[in-house]
C-alpha cells in the first residue's frame, strides 16, 4: 500500500491517494488530522492538498460519523415517490436531522444525490447495502437490523 519515495514523487505518484484515503475512511469511519497527515507524508504532499482532495468527495467524511451511514436519495425520481416521507420517518426513528449523528453513535444520516436505484424509488443505502421501494412504515424494521 505505502508507496516508496521514488514512486510517490514520480509523475503519477498520486494515483494511489484516493484509494488510500478511501481505505482509511472505510476502516476508521472518517479521516482525521492524524490520518491525513500520515498520508500527506507518504505521498510527499502538503496537508492542505490532502485536505482539499478529501473534502471534495462525498464518501470521504472529515468529521466523525456514526458506525453506520444512512444515505437517503433526494433526487427527482425518489422525490416523486415521496422520499420526503421516508426522510421524516428516519428523523422520527432516530431523533436526528440529515447531517447529524445519533447520540449513541450508531447512525449518521445524510441526504445524497441519485444512487442509481430510481426504478426502486424511494431508495437509500446503509453503508454499502441498497434498500429500495421504501415505505415510511418499513423504516423501523430496517434500522433495527443494525
Amino acid at each position: 500500500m505505502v508507496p516508496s519515495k521514488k514512486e510517490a514523487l514520480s509523475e503519477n505518484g498520486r494515483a494511489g491517494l484516493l484509494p488510500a484515503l478511501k481505505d482509511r475512511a472505510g476502516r476508521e469511519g472518517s479521516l482525521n488530522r492524524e490520518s491525513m497527515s500520515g498520508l500527506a507524508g507518504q505521498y510527499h504532499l502538503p496537508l492542505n492538498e490532502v485536505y482539499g482532495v478529501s473534502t471534495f468527495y462525498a464518501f470521504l467524511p472529515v468529521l466523525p460519523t456514526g458506525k453506520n451511514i444512512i444515505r437517503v436519495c433526494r433526487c427527482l425520481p425518489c422525490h416523486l415517490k415521496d422520499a420526503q416521507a421516508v426522510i421524516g420517518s428516519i428523523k422520527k426513528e432516530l431523533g436526528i436531522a440529515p447531517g447529524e449523528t445519533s447520540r449513541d453513535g450508531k447512525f449518521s444520516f445524510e441526504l445524497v444525490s441519485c444512487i442509481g436505484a430510481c426504478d426502486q424509488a424511494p431508495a437509500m443505502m446503509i453503508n454499502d447495502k441498497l434498500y429500495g421501494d421504501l415505505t415510511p412504515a418499513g423504516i423501523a424494521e430496517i434500522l433495527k437490523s443494525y
Partner: protein
Amino acid sequence: MAEKRIVLSKCGSIDPQDIGTYIAKGGFSAFIKARDKMKPQAIIAEVKKSGLTGRGGAGFNTGLKWELARNAKAKAKYLLCNADEGEVGTFKDKYILSNDPFGLIEGMCIAGLAIGAQQAFIYLRNEYHFLYDPLVRAVGQVREKGYLKHMDIQVFEGAGAYICGEESALMNSIEGMRGESRYKPPYPPTRGLWGLPTIINNVETLMNVPHIINNGAAWFSAIGTGRSKGTKVFSVSGDVSRPGVYELEMGSTLRELVVGLAGADDLKAVQIGGATGNILPASMLNTPLSHETYLGSGAVVALNSGRDIIDVVQNDMHFLNDESCGKCTPCREGTEVMLEIFGRLARGEGHEGDINSLDALARTMAVSSLCGLGQAAAVPVLDSLRYFYNDYIDRINQSHFLRSYLSGELFKSEEGIR
C-alpha cells in the same frame, strides 16, 4: 413496438460470474476475430463506418475518437471505461455491469487493440461498490483465458462525486486530485490521463463494439436513424407503472418508450437526460429519441399531471448545486443563485423579476461555464420557462395573493408550502 435487444442480448441468459456461459453464447468470438484477423486500423475503420456514437451523453463518433488516439504519438496510451453513472434517473450501466460484465470487458479488449492501450481502467462509482468484487473477478477470468495479454484492466472506485463522470474530472480523480473538470482543448484523445492520449467511453458504447465486429458495420448502420445508429438503452422512472431498463432502436418515439413499454398515463411532461435534461410537455410524446432530437444518457423521468414543474426544476437545481465542482464562476455561483430563486418561488415569495434573472443566468451559464455540468444546468430552466411559462406566472401571482393575506409564518419552513 417491442424492444430491440443488442446491448442487452446476453443479460439474463448468462451467469455474470462464469465466463464459460458467456463464451458458450458466442462471447469473445469478436475479440478473437479482431485480434487474429484485423489490423488496428481495420477495427477502427469498421467502428467508424458503423456510425457508433458515444452513449454517455455527448454522442461523438466513437471510431473517429479512437482514430485520434491511435494516431497520437506517445509512450503510452490509456483506455477508460466510464462507469460513474451519476446522472439522475440513470441506472442502465448498473444493469449491464450486474448482468453482463464480460460483454463490457470484451468491448474494452477490442478497444485496447484498436487504440494501442496497455492499461485500462473501469471507473466505478462508489455507490456501486457491490459490483466491485464481481467486476474484479470477471476481469480475472478474462485474464486467465489469455484475452488480456495486450492490456491490463484495473477497476478504480470513485468516492462520491457526480462531476467525476465528466471525462476530464474523471481523469483528475484517477490521478489522485480533486475531481474538477479541465478546460478543453486539449482533448483526452491527444492529452488525457497523465497527459497521455486517452480514450474514454461509456459502458454502453463499449458493449456495442463486439456486435459490430461480429456482424459488420453495414448491419449496425442499418439500424437507427441518419446520425444515430444502433439502439439505445433507456432508464425509465418516475410516474410509470413499469419503471426499468429498456433497449430500443434509435429513433423510437418517446410515446413507445414511456407509454407503450413503461406504462405511463396521464402525463404532463417528461425529463430526458437527468437533472440537466430537457423537460418536454406531453404534447411532444411523438418525438423520436435520437442524437438529432433528445437523448442524453437515456434517463427518462415521467411526470404526471399532478406534478409541479417548479418543484421539479428546483429539485434538479438542488442536485446540480450539490454536485458543481466549484471551479468556475458561472456554475458555482449561478446554481446557488438559481436555487435561492427556486426556493423563494416554491415558498410563495417569488416576483416577476425572478423570471428575468433565471433567464439571464441560464443563458450566461450555458455559454460561459467551463464544462458540461454548468452549461447544461441551463437546460431544464430554459425548457420549463419555454413550455411551462404559465406555471411560473401562476405561482408568482399566487405569491402576491398569499402574501397579502397571510402572515409569513406559514412559509418559513425549508420545505415550503407543499
